[in-house]
């Protein structure tokens, strides 16, 4: 039986007067890929940003509830430690423009002032770039600036950067929405391989993508968790009418 590595209990989140999420209860099993879906404005991005405590960085943002990472409440832990244990990849690739590919990959260590020996650094860089399926393409130009890569390559670099920290959970916020179809396919393939070694939570707009790649699917609507279950079941026999309508493309 898979253990749940991440458990969300009664999560509510808001921006000032606007309530974004209400009473979310969800749990994620180890080494699985869960897709978070729903129409625009349903709160999916806010949900994952609550997991790594990025939501609270915005002024007037409020969060209540508990999120357990390996049985420890994320909201009782120092947010910096939480963010080091949970990786995030954003919608638009954002490699650090002043750093080389090499430095981008181990940015999590360098920026945090964590000292590694040269062999450790080289090893971490190579390993994470391989896991992100980028190693072969950049191994001869590791010291060039990251901004010279194509969009898809930049995004894979961001994935490598997150993986280099050996996070417990990897959060992906619509990682392919800014990329062309070829780059999208590349990353989809990469993600479906990665899910066997790390727990992934992916926000996506792309229903077909979710059906292809994810093990579990969560459907959010207007800030509420409408339905959650194994992907196959969600698509073939959804329990809620709204889930059915969304997954068959009727709205959203």
């Amino acid at each position, binding site marked *: 039986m898979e253990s749940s590595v991440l458990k969300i209990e009664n999560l509510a989140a808001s921006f000032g007067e606007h309530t974004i999420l209400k009473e979310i209860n969800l749990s994620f099993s180890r080494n699985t890929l869960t897709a978070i879906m729903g129409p625009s404005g349903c709160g999916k991005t806010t949900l994952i940003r609550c997991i790594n405590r990025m939501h609270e960085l915005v002024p007037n943002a409020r969060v209540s509830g508990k999120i357990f990472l390996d049985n420890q409440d994320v909201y009782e832990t120092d947010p910096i430690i939480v963010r080091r*244990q949970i990786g995030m990849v954003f919608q638009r690739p954002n490699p650090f423009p002043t750093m080389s590919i090499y430095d981008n990959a181990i940015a999590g260590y360098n920026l945090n*002032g964590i000292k590694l020996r040269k062999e450790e650094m080289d090893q971490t860089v190579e390993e994470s770039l391989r896991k992100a399926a980028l190693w072969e393409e950049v191994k001869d130009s590791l010291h060039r600036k990251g901004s010279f890569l194509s969009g898809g390559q930049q995004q894979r670099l961001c994935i490598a950067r997150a993986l280099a920290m*050996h996070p417990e959970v990897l959060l992906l916020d619509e990682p392919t929405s800014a990329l062309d179809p070829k780059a999208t396919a590349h990353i989809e393939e990469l993600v479906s391989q990665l899910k066997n070694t790390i727990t992934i939570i992916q926000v996506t707009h792309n229903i077909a993508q979710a059906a292809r790649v994810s093990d579990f699917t969560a459907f959010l609507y207007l800030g509420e968790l409408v339905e959650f279950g194994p992907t196959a079941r969600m698509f073939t026999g959804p329990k809620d009418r709204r889930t059915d309508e969304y997954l068959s493309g009727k709205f959203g």
Partner: protein
Amino acid sequence: MNHSMANVAVPAASSKIKMQYKWGISEASFRRLLYFAGLILVFLLMAIFFSLVISSVPALRQFGFSFLIGKTWDPVRGEFGAFAFLVGTLMSSFMALLISMVFSLPVSIFLGEYFRHGNVSTFMKSVIELLAGIPSVIYGFWGLFLLVPLVRELETKLGVAPQGVGIFTSSLVLAVMIIPYASSIGTEVINLVPADLKEAALSLGATRFEVIRKVILPYAFSGIFAGVLLALGRALGETMAVTMVIGNSNFLPHSIFSPGNTMASVIANEFTEATGSLYLASLIELALVLFIVTTIINILGKLIIRKMSTEK
């Protein structure tokens, strides 16, 4: 690059993440540092103002308001009246403004309407920028050796005492120096006049000149005025170029060709030789007046600009 991915080093790196923490400055302290930096600047400004006031106290106490209307500046007798310098400052600055506007307004129209892009525009903009970058003492030097002889000739032709130096010469130099300041904001404002207003006028058969005169200039008026104010602020405080060509006389100037002094130039001239606390305090009081006047003019100009950009 070795390909043996021994997992020995990996746990070490990841455990370091969890171990090494809490060194380096905390967020709260850093934010306090930033706040502090901002506050230092506020205190700096207040300290400048208070220092000027405190150092002027001997003169303020002695002369009070008559400091500004006193016509005699006689260090030997201890009489310090700044009226001559007020007149000198106002005369040279306003003349400089008038002369400068003859050129800077066309520059604003040139850059804002006729040549808004392209090589000519870039060239003109770069040269104007360079004008602003030339040090004041070099303007003064140039004024001394080129303008003064020319003005002397002019004065001879006019039958006036051919001194060459004087208020008129200083306003010539000042006029050149403030062209960049008078024209920059005007250029921006003219550039920002909405295209549909201009096109509406043009489609009614107006010539470009008429569009400029009847649509653009009225619309951009407050911006141009703000530019004039800021240029005035600059002219009032200008020291070196003025000192070198104004003739340095402490008597009330009776014509534009008279030698004279501005508040700034008399400070430059006499400060190092000022003996006695009253003398020094009087000069510092002049600096205080300069500070207050230029600050008011600058804030006024910036307020107008801010009001313009929120309205439009």
